[in-house]
C-alpha cells in the first residue's frame, strides 16, 4: 500500500506538478479554439459561400474522437506537411482545432441570439458591416457566450488527459509513471481524478466571476 511509503507526498506532488502541462494544453487549446471558433461562427452566420466548407469542418471535428485526431495529426498530417511537431505542440494544435469546432457552435448561438435588429441599427448609423459586427454584435455575443464557454473549458480540461497517449507529461502520464513505480493504482488515479475535479471547479468559478464583472448593468438578454 502506498501510504506505507514515505515517498507518498513526493509522488502526489509529482502528479500535481503535471497540472502546469495540463494548463499549457488547455490554455493553448482554448486560445486557438477561440480564434478558430469565432471566425467560423462569423462565417457561418454572415457568409453564404464559405458556409458549406465551415459546416464540413465542424462536422468532421465534432464527430471524430480526439484520440483518432491526435494520432492522425501527429503521425500523418504534420509529417506529410514536412513539419514534425513535438507531442506537446501537436496536442495543443489538435485540441485547438477540435475545440474551435465546438466553440463555433457556442458563438454562433450567441451571435444569433443578439439578433439582426442590432446589426441593422448599426448599419443605419452609417457603420460598415464589418464595423457593425466588430463593435455592436460581438461585444454582446461574447458576453452571452461566457457560460457556454466555461463549459467548453471543463470539457477541454478533461479531454486534455487523453493527450497522454502521445506522451505529453501532463497529469495522467505522471500518474501512470507513479502507478508503475509504486505498484499501486487506486490512490494515484483517484488523486489525479480529484485534481481534475478541483481544476474544473476553479476554472469554472473564474469564468463566472468574469461573467459577473463584464455583465452590462440593466440589460436583460432574451435567450
Amino acid at each position: 500500500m502506498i501510504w506505507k511509503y514515505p515517498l507518498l507526498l513526493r509522488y502526489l506532488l509529482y502528479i500535481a506538478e503535471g497540472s502546469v502541462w495540463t494548463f499549457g494544453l488547455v490554455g493553448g487549446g482554448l486560445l486557438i479554439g477561440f480564434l478558430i471558433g469565432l471566425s467560423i461562427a462569423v462565417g457561418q452566420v454572415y457568409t453564404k459561400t464559405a458556409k458549406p466548407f465551415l459546416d464540413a469542418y465542424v462536422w468532421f471535428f465534432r464527430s471524430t474522437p480526439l484520440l483518432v485526431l491526435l494520432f492522425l495529426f501527429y503521425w500523418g498530417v504534420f509529417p506529410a506537411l514536412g513539419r514534425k511537431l513535438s507531442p506537446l505542440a501537436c496536442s495543443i494544435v489538435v485540441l485547438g482545432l477540435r475545440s474551435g469546432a465546438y466553440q463555433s457552435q457556442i458563438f454562433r448561438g450567441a451571435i444569433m441570439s443578439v439578433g439582426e435588429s442590432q446589426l441593422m441599427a448599426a448599419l443605419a448609423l452609417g457603420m460598415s458591416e464589418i464595423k457593425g459586427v466588430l463593435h455592436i454584435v460581438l461585444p454582446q455575443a461574447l458576453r452571452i457566450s461566457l457560460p457556454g464557454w466555461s463549459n467548453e473549458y471543463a470539457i477541454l480540461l478533461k479531454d486534455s488527459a487523453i493527450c497522454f497517449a502521445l506522451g505529453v507529461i501532463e497529469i495522467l502520464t505522471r500518474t501512470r509513471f507513479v502507478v508503475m513505480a509504486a505498484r499501486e493504482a487506486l490512490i494515484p488515479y483517484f488523486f489525479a481524478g480529484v485534481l481534475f475535479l478541483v481544476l474544473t471547479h476553479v476554472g469554472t468559478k473564474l469564468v463566472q466571476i468574469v461573467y459577473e464583472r463584464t455583465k452590462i448593468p440593466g440589460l436583460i438578454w432574451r435567450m
Partner: protein
Amino acid sequence: MNFWDVFLLKILEEEFWGVFLPKILGGWVVTVKVLLISIPLSTILAITLAVARIYGNKPVSLLAASFVGLFRGFPCVVTLLMIFFALPEIGVYLSPYWSAVLAFVIVSGSYQSEYVRGAIQSIEIGQSFAAQSLGMTKLQEIIHIILPQALRRALPGVSNEIIYLVKYSSLASFIGVGEIFAVSRLYNSLYFRPIDIFLAAAVIYMFMCTIASFIFKVIENKSRYPE
C-alpha cells in the same frame, strides 16, 4: 488511364487494404458490441441516479449526488484506467471488455443523469398533485406520470451524451479492447500509413455519429406529444 482508374488500381493492387479493411471492420464489431451494452445500461443508470437524487431520502440523495459529481469531474480516461487497474487491488477482476463497459456506463450515466434530473425538475408540480389526488403511490406517480414526460424533455441532452460516448469508446483501446482504434494503431505500427489508417478510423466514427444523431432525431420526432 484517368485519375480514378489510377486511384482504384492503387487501392486494389496493394494487399494493404485487403488485409486492413477486414480487420478494422472486425474492430468496428467490437466497438458496436461495447456500445450496444453500455448505452442502454448507462441510460438506466442515469434514470436511477436522477430519481434517487430527487425522490430519495437524505442519505440516498446525497450518495447519488456525490456519485454524479465525482464521475462528472473525473476525465473519462481516468475513470477507465482506475477501474481496470485499481479494481484488482480490492479483489475484483474484470476482463478489459467488461471494464470498458463498466467505465462507460458509470461515466455516461453520470452525465446523462444531469439531463434527466433537469427534465424531472422542469415538470410542473401540478402533475404530481394530480397523480396524488388520483390515489397513486409515489412509485406509480414517478413511473407513469413524471418519467414519461421528463424523458421526452431529456432526450436531446441524453442523445448528445450518447454520441459523446460513441466517440469516447475509442479510449477502450488503452486497456486492450480490440476495437477500431486499437486495430488502427496496430496496423499503423505494421504498415506505417498513418493518414490512410487513421482517416479510415475517423470515417467510421463519423459514420457512426451521424447515424446515431439521425436515429435520435427520428426517435425525438416519433415520441413527441402531438400538439
